[in-house]
């Protein structure tokens, strides 16, 4: 009896291997099912919501919406954002708080999106750029508000 079982096992083994090899043969003859991508040459269109880095939106008049309320700074778990404020003189002669520098430490950021959710005026958003490698670490500390920019009118 054991001899029959032995031969049965061998045939069963050959059959199971052939079933597996069928798929190998299928992919060998169907080149169109190739899913790899030649990355630096071909780049995939990233999703709209993909979180690559934090940016501040500016309009054509170089105006942003950040009031300097530090809601994002408080919401950030890693201390990525640091807001430096200054006092500006309004035309009526009053002093008004405004941002001087919106410092963003990309090297600390984990792209958790909590700052964007916390922002009451939608001043910051997530951008799709993800190729962040640089030679010097200090280049990763960025100031997000553009030079000479000021707050959009009507945003409180």
């Amino acid at each position, binding site marked *: 009896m054991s001899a029959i079982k032995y031969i049965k096992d061998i045939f069963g083994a050959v059959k199971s*291997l052939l*079933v*597996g090899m069928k*798929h190998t043969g299928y992919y060998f003859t169907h080149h169109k099912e190739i899913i790899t991508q030649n990355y630096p040459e071909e780049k995939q269109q990233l999703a709209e*919501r993909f979180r690559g880095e934090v940016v501040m939106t500016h309009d054509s008049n170089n105006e942003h919406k950040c009031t300097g309320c530090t809601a994002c700074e408080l919401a950030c778990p890693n201390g990525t954002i640091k807001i430096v404020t200054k006092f500006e003189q309004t035309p009526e002669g009053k002093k008004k708080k405004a941002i001087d520098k919106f410092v963003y430490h990309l090297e600390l950021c984990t792209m958790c999106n909590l700052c964007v959710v916390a922002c009451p005026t939608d001043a910051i958003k997530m951008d799709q750029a993800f190729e962040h490698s640089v030679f010097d670490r200090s280049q990763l500390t960025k100031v997000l508000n553009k030079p000479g920019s000021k707050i959009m009118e009507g945003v409180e």
Partner: protein
Amino acid sequence: MQNQTDILSTAQKVSPFGGDLEGASGDMIINIGPQHPSTHGVLQLVVTLNGETIKKVEPHLGFIHRSIEKMCESLTYRQFIYVTSRMDYLSSHINNHGCALCVEKGMQIEVPERAKVIRVLMDELTRIASHELWWGAMAMDLGAFTPFFLSFRERETITDIMEDTCGARLTMNYIVPGGVMAELHPDFQKKVKAFIKLFREKADQYNELVTGNIIFQSRMKNVGVLSKEDAISYGCTGPTARGSGVNCDIRKLYPYEVYDKLKFDEVIETGCDSFSRYLVRVKEMYQSISIIEQLIDNIPEGDFQAKTKAVLKLPKGEFYTRVETARGELGVYIVSEGATTPYRIKFRSPGFSNLSALNHMAKGGKIGDLVAMMGTLDLVIPDIDR
């Protein structure tokens, strides 16, 4: 000269872990890891061998300990959720879910129906993605290379869905206390349906290629036997325990969100060996697909997030919730003193208890089978160390 060789041989024989490297018993101690591909991360195993037979396996942990529990104590209840994605990174969404549930339990926040359904959908997609990756890695541990690419091809579809809606592919951070962070992507339902169709087509290939393979079966059957009693006493959960016939699916035993309204089977195999643990995971993928099919056309309308206060403060007390991750039971235990940050957080991670059964399973087995046993435990080292 004679003296010198004596010193040298004594030095070689003394192991850094106390015992003799090659003592009178003829035992040999070898290190696997921490930089070994089959350990799936930085895990060091000190294996005592007699010939090829394993006498003892001693896992040395702590290479990727980041003190996440301590870190959470300095973060607010909104912030600490994102850190837990870094524990069990393959089921990061379910980790976040457990933490959010615990905060909601303390705050007594009523989560909208829509958010509940979205959370469950995402949970099951994560579970499939995790099992897909495990399946490829499992086959690769045993020397088959093609399954790894096949499983990653299907997993890619899920990560694309995640990227569309959550904004990230692995560490999603989509769940916030009170609901989810953003509305579903308009293409979500279409893409998930396309994935279900693709999965049903391709999953049979998986079974033909690997499950039915005679070499695979003979390396898995009767290897790494863990009896039902042992699985319970070592605290194993998830597919590892269900492969030994233990009823331990938290989704069935203590249903959270909408799991009590869904029809799905708790997959239980009674083979107690590596192969039954393998089968549990493969069958669980089909169960998750069936859960997604039930929900995808029935997402209720409404808000995706409950209105919560800007600053969350849990009342004084202790809160515990548990969820079923892809690896087993994750418990989240929060002690609150009434402040904005937790006083103490403890995570009961499934990987740690599952790993503790490895020594028992491997004893008496062969060193070549050790990798197969570790593969079926589905170890994620950051989950074990935290």
